[in-house]
């Protein structure tokens, strides 16, 4: 299967700091590819390269097998790469449907009478939210009234509705409680079933392992391998993420059981 997005041997340096070194990474349609790594492993840099915020210093990006250069996040977006950053680009004081269509408002009428088609916006928002599994009472209620998990769901629904082929989720579960996080995992599963390639960035193995199809382990800017779920255990991932030895030292501390 041709990956929907592919990074080949990407290197990214900031001055003398090497943030990424020879990283290759790809996502196929209808799969969840988890990007795992501890703080400072290069996860953020990698997604910024994927989403067009940074340009790689060396190496190539391919969309559907063709070489491409993202000059800006807009280029990436137009190529079907939607990134849901941690701030979600949501306005808490604005309604759900206005947030859903922000910057891409449907209009009716012509010329001076061209106006925001609120009814259409409300209807689509409600349908798309139900499709992802959130039953909203009123698309006119403020986004601030939604829970953290529901906001993630809204961001995912918005990205998929506007034709994303690749969905990059930056730590979507990190600030959430157990129940909310499992809801978000369900939204991710829905997006995968729609044939979208999902890049799921996290450092929480308990969230990544149940949903992931493949796992890429980053450490200090280099790729420590990409594995299918059947080829790697939860414990092994955890060990690599922690840098191999840190956990062992922790075990030796009296009174701590890992």
């Amino acid at each position: 299967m041709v990956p929907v997005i592919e990074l080949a041997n990407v290197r990214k340096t900031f001055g003398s700091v090497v943030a990424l070194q020879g990283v290759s990474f790809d996502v196929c349609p209808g799969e969840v590819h988890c990007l795992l790594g501890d703080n400072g492993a290069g996860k953020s840099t990698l997604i910024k390269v994927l989403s067009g915020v940074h340009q790689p210093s060396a190496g190539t990006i391919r969309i559907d097998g063709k070489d491409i250069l993202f000059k800006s996040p807009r280029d990436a977006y137009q190529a079907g790469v939607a990134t849901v950053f941690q701030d979600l680009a949501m306005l808490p004081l604005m309604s759900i449907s206005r947030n859903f269509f922000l910057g891409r408002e449907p209009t009716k009428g012509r010329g001076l009478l061209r106006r925001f088609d609120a009814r259409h916006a409300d209807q689509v928002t409600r349908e798309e939210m139900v499709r992802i599994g959130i039953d909203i009472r009123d698309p006119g209620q403020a986004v601030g009234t939604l829970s953290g998990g529901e906001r993630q769901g809204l961001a995912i629904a918005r990205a998929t509705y506007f034709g994303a082929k690749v969905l990059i989720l930056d730590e979507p579960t990190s600030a959430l409680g157990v129940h909310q996080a499992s809801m978000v995992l369900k939204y991710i599963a829905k997006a995968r079933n729609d044939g979208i390639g999902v890049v799921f960035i996290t450092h929480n193995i308990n969230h990544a392992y149940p949903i992931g199809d493949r796992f890429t382990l980053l450490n200090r800017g280099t790729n420590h391998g990409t594995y299918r779920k059947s080829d790697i255990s939860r414990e092994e991932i955890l060990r690599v993420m922690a840098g191999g030895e840190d956990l062992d030292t922790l075990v030796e501390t009296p009174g701590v059981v890992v």
Partner: protein
Amino acid sequence: MSATSAEPAKGIHIKKKGIGSDSKRLAKQSTFARIMHRPESGAVSGLLFVYVFFLLFANGSGMFGADGMLNIFKVSAELGILAVSVSLLMIAGEFDLSVGSMIALSGLMIGVGVTKLGLSLPVAVMMAFVLSLLIGAFNGYLVVRTKLPSFIVTLATMFILRGVAVAVTRLLTGKTQISYVVNEFNQDSWVVSIFSGHLFGGLFQYLAEHGVITMRPDGLASVPGIPVSILWWVLVTALATWVLLRTRLGNWIFATGGDANAARNMGVPVDKVKILLFMFSALMATLFATVQVLESGSADTMRGIQKEFEAIIAAVIGGCLLTGGYGSAVGSLFGALIFGTVQVGMFYTGIDTDWFKVFLGLMVLMAVLFNDYIRKMATSSR
């Protein structure tokens, strides 16, 4: 130590949460609560309070006669024209402190145009409108480019514009006031009637002749009609409300003030929105100035002082948050009406008008606290 179970944990019984969403366990909001959550609800209740107060204490003083009411509406209309543009700007997260100076400058542009450059009144008014749009665009451009708070940038232009207005006027005329801007040659111009005329004069005369409203000794009605400025006020407010609630631009205005960065990420042209709104506030300042100049017939460098603050007060009472992203255009209409009612009402009740500013300050405090409360209600996870 808390009670620790001796048995191994197994199959702890818990109540399942609703599937998918927590919103199911919530009752439907009542209509009353929905109305109370509108940004302008504070201003409407404030207005009701003010009217109850004056009905109790000023009834029979003539305040609620045709004369008094028209006075209230006239004062409110002029402030309201400014407040509506300031509201939009505040919703987009910016301030314009230069509107007061803009009023003086625009008035003087009309005055200089007519008396010194020999322009006809329509051309002079047109020139003032065009120049004000340029100045507004400059304000906006400065804010967008420097990324400084607009509070500081427009504080600077407030002094610059006032200074230019005074200096140039004195240079050209030797005085700080220009009289006879409206004179015997141009007083019948159509510009005079669309900016300072009266509507329904015949109707008011008819009402006076039939004793519905009072008549002056000379046989004319006590009020000549409804000042056109009131029509301008209602029109501009209606237009702004429509734009805010029913167009893409309105959505962008809210988003720009709510979180400019998020809005930019979603493709909203944040800078253009801001510049456009600064142009609108300069334009409304000029509308205010035109009404004033054509009504009084003269222009003065002292015009419009403190109007920028009065407009902000009306906008805040109308439900705008100082931090942007929330507010209402129609709310500013109610805010201006409270302002006008109290100002005129104090005159009729015989309360020393020195207390007016004390009242204003208290109103602002109350409005800010109320807005804060409404915002918390609107965004709390219900």
